[in-house]
């Protein structure tokens, strides 16, 4: 056990799985970086933010493959390699670039097994960074996990900490279905204690980061940390919160959410993706349908506005869910009083 950053935790998961299984390969734009450059360095970047640094050195260029900037071909190649004997981990760099290769994910990899009557296995991982908070503006900041969650055949993972990232990525690589693994780019330098040995965190099993009696907060990825900060503040005001990190949006641990809502009677969902048809609306629908009678207040969603992600810091800060907004939503739900109809 030692302190590791989110970046280091992901790198360690990749390294350990590549050691364990020779069919695991990496591919993506500049996953090594520097090939063909005048400096003659073949591992200049190790990923645009250094997440895959050093892997070329250990595993060589037959297993760490730099690609041209052509997402359709290499994401499609990763899908094709996955159904023919390899276990590729393809890096899409920014999830926004899925616009260049959605067919390969949505119509090919996700559907092979079903279309082919159960005869295909597609052990593919697509890693991509997502999220606002980096002044990266509208084409490099989206949180597109609802898009993938919508597509049957895909699994979707959103780690909320370095510990979670390592264990979930190991599960993703060992999984026999296509997995979209989304890393919030703001978190790469966050550190915590992470075991040195490999460990796998199962999909579809939510993590309760705290348990309380008044309000259930469901949050994803980086929002889990914000929800816990809000819960700390609220605790001092006498409001006790449960915080659920579902870890994966597909599969989704509906049971844990429903059980917690049954206990608290109040639900706040924190989701940094665009507000229409996102995880907050999905979970709100599930709870409204299956746990209506346990609710003591309307469900509240802490989400961005229905706009592209803005560039200027002042606007980007307004755009994102915040500790203040989560605290306000919880306070509002606590203030709600049910009026009995006569």
């Amino acid at each position, binding site marked *: 056990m030692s302190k590791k950053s989110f970046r280091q935790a992901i790198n360690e998961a990749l390294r350990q799985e590549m050691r364990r299984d020779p*069919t695991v*390969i990496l591919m993506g734009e500049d996953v090594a970086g520097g090939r063909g450059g005048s400096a003659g360095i073949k591992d200049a970047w190790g990923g645009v933010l250094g997440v895959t640094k050093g892997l070329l050195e250990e595993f060589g260029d*037959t*297993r760490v*493959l730099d*690609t*041209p900037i*052509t997402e*359709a*071909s*290499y*994401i*499609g*190649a*990763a*899908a*094709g*390699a*996955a*159904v*023919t*004997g*390899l276990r*590729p981990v393809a890096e899409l760099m920014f999830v926004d670039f899925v616009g260049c290769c959605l*067919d*390969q994910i949505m*119509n*090919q990899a996700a*559907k*092979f*097994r*079903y*279309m*082919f*009557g*159960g*005869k*295909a*296995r597609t052990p593919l991982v697509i890693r991509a960074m997502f999220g606002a908070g980096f002044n990266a503006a509208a084409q490099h900041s989206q949180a597109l996990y609802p898009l993938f969650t919508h597509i*049957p*055949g895909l*699994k979707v993972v959103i780690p909320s900490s370095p510990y979670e990232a390592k264990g979930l990525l190991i599960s993703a690589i060992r*999984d*026999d*279905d296509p997995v979209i693994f989304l890393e919030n780019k703001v978190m790469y330098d966050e550190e915590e204690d992470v075991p040195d040995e490999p460990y796998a965190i199962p999909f*579809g099993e939510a993590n309760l980061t705290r348990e309380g009696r008044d309000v259930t907060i469901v949050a994803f990825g980086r929002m889990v940390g914000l929800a816990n900060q809000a819960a700390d503040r609220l605790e001092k005001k006498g409001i006790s919160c449960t915080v659920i990190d579902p870890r994966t949006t597909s*599969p989704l641990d509906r049971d844990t959410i429903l059980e917690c809502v049954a206990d608290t009677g109040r639900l706040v969902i924190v989701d940094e993706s665009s507000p229409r048809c996102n995880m907050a609306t999905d979970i709100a629908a599930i709870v409204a349908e299956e746990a209506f009678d346990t609710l003591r207040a309307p469900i509240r969603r802490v989400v961005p506005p229905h706009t592209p992600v803005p560039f200027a810091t002042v606007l980007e800060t307004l755009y994102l869910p915040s500790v203040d907004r989560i605290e306000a939503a919880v306070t509002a739900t606590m203030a709600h009083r049910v009026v009995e109809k006569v």
Partner: protein
Amino acid sequence: MQIARETLLRSYRAMRTIRMFEERLHVEFATGEIPGFVHLYCGEEASAVGVCANLTDNDTIASTHRGHGHCIAKGVGVAGMMAEIYGRSTGVCRGKGGSMHIADLACGMLGANGIVGGGPPLICGAALSHKTLRDGGVAVAFYGDGASNEGSTLESLNLASVWNLPAVFVVEDNGYGEATGASYACAGTQQARAAGFGMPYIECDGSDYFAVHQAAGEAIAHAREGRGPVMLHVHLARWYGHFEGDAMTYRAADEVANARRDHDCLKLFRTRVTEAGLFEGSELDEVDAAVADEIEAAVVQAKDDPLPQSADLLADVYVRY
């Protein structure tokens, strides 16, 4: 190159099987009993069979929406295909894929594909698997002149060259992307495109099985030897519409009739092998009769086979969920 007699016989049978399979579907589709979309491969048989005669089960192909010919040429069973097209649980994809998604990974058939340009990237991946696992396999993408303009295809030509993959890109140029002529939709030439990505280019007459076999043999050997990808440009004629029900008002009245008269790969094959004294006409007639029986049996069986059960709706979305 001398082609073994048994290879010739197997190829003739495969071409005849494709022809009869498709012509029967043409008839059956008109009765309304076949659900969904069907795209027929008639007229193009020598391409799939001439290429696949150079492949084994260890090699991989990816196909197109017009995929029945590639499936049969690569060894997918006719009965399972027919049942699939009829949406039966006995189908090769258990009735969940249909005509456009027939696949059989066990014989290296990575699937027909409903997306134009869907196959070439997948074939880069299959070729990467062959290369990385050092199994000696080659991966072949069949795609049409329409798909040759897709970005995914052009990206794949580049990636295959950059990674020096054991891949062959077979452009089946039947002159039409749906209803639009290749002469309108394809800028430049396929040859110049291959050259642009630094890969060898071979073209051949797709109605001539021997020409396709020879050209594909060279292309596949080149890729198998680790010398990188090749483009094989096959000139063809499509005898039916883009899909069944297409009245083909965009084609001159005599175009298909001329193709059937002068460029029928089966007629040309028969003439060549009988004139060369390799086969008696009666031997080939026996094949035709056997294939006719096989197709008839497949249709009768498919119509009688069970439909999928309601539980099948939810099965096989994931390996585990």
